[in-house]
């Protein structure tokens, strides 16, 4: 590590893997002989609410684990900016996921984008976002890559069910490690959730899906008696895919609407 102390704040949404990133980084740094403090902070909800990790890695003793000014801020979701804005000062380096967070939304002097969601979902799956970010951050913090990977394997051993998944995660890790953080304009946030009701229609039926409410639980898909629903490409509230309707199979029976916990889907017949 170059500097004596690194005060890091990681912010994202529950389910993105913010606490896993912090756990891996803190474990690796502790194994390397640094003093580490890690405080997770999240709400009563287990998924979909802001999730923040305060991480201090130091060469000397850490007197107090809380801090007011972060040296490094990692932002993985646009909604999380609100929660970390007060820790960002002119000296703070901000790393943000440029495929979900727009460049202008981050107010900082030194900011670097990494299209983490895009890289992760194109190369393996959205779930591997945290492995990618660990790769990028380990290089930034000068933690040895091999040690970091060993920690990932031990922390996520239950998730790596086969050797193939493990190997592909290693590739994602290396991809994150080798990603060049350049100052530039990352205004194109391609993986942003949709807003406003999406209306589609066909075969005399009309479907309205509200991406602002859809949490991609998949209950409508498994409960559809005709198999007319499947996950599409558009993204919903938690930056996860929302369902699409196959109007050839759909009979507008209203089962999906009856079950949807969030009131996000409605299919009706068009009465002429």
């Amino acid at each position, binding site marked *: 590590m170059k500097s004596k102390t690194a005060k890091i704040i990681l912010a994202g949404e529950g389910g993105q893997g913010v606490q896993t990133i912090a756990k891996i980084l803190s474990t690796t740094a502790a194994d390397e002989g640094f003093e580490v403090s890690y405080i997770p902070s999240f*709400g009563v909800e287990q998924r979909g609410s802001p999730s923040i990790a305060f991480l201090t890695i130091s060469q000397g003793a850490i007197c107090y684990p809380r801090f007011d000014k972060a040296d490094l801020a990692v932002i993985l979701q646009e909604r999380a900016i609100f929660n970390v804005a007060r820790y960002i000062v002119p000296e703070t380096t901000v790393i943000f996921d440029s495929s979900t967070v727009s460049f202008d939304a981050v107010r900082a002097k030194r900011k670097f984008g990494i299209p983490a969601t895009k890289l992760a979902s194109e190369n393996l799956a959205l779930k591997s976002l945290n492995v990618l970010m660990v790769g990028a951050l380990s290089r930034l913090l000068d933690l040895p890559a091999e040690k970091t990977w060993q920690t990932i394997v031990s922390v996520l051993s239950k998730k790596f069910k086969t050797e193939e998944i493990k190997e592909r995660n290693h590739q994602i890790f290396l991809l994150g490690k080798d990603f060049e953080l350049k100052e530039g304009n990352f205004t194109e946030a391609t993986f942003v959730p949709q807003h406003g009701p999406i209306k589609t229609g066909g075969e005399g039926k009309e479907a309205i899906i509200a991406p602002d*409410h859809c*949490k991609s639980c998949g209950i409508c898909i498994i409960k559809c008696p005709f198999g007319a629903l499947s996950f599409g490409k558009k993204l919903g*509230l938690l930056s996860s895919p929302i369902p699409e309707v196959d109007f050839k199979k759909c009979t507008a029976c209203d089962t999906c609407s009856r079950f949807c*916990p969030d009131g996000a889907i409605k299919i009706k017949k068009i009465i002429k």
Partner: protein
Amino acid sequence: MDNFSPKSWNQKSKPHFFCPGCGHAIALKQLGYAIDDLAIQQKTTIGIDIGCSLLVWDFFNIDTVQTHHGRTTPVMVGYKIAKPQRIALAYTGDGGAYAIGLQSLVHAAFRNNPVTVIVVNNENYAMTGGQLSPTTETGIKTTTSPSGKDLKFGPGFKGPELLHQIANEKSFIARGSISNPVQLKNLLIKAIKNQTDNNSFSFIEILSICPTNWKTDAEQSFERLKEMEKYYPIGEIK
């Protein structure tokens, strides 16, 4: 956003804070439809418990009372005595109803107090991370029973059957499941009507899912719910 969700839902608080795929929200949707059908939105008060059920505090455009853990039923009993014209619903989880709040619930049923108690049973303490609850069935793994629930902690707790033994014959006691929302809605309507028309106690247990703590996806959750329905029979308990 019309026709998407019950009219009694508070659209300002949506998207709500329940996890993706939470059974609470499906149960609350049917409760919302029941309240819409009976047109009782203006004269209802919901008492809410600690746990995941507390997220109901701004879920409906309906007055709510936040009570102490397990004390939802007695608070609503007192409320009903003070305001007999209002409809009192007590919304709790299985921990609040069967563990810490059981004695209050038993005596409310015993005295035949005119309140409607709605218990959402998802077989664990979900908000604190999925610990063992009285309703967890034998052999189920939770964070506090990593090798499966031992029989020495008792089998799954059958609340409605217990209450049926001591409750007044005018009371209405039933068990519904979110896997059959239409039946659940009809049971909820019957339960609320039992309070208003018969001035008697009514109780509904709703079998629910918890994908976050069960660590299941949508399909596996409903498969496990099917297994639950074999142990906890659905329907009115007579």
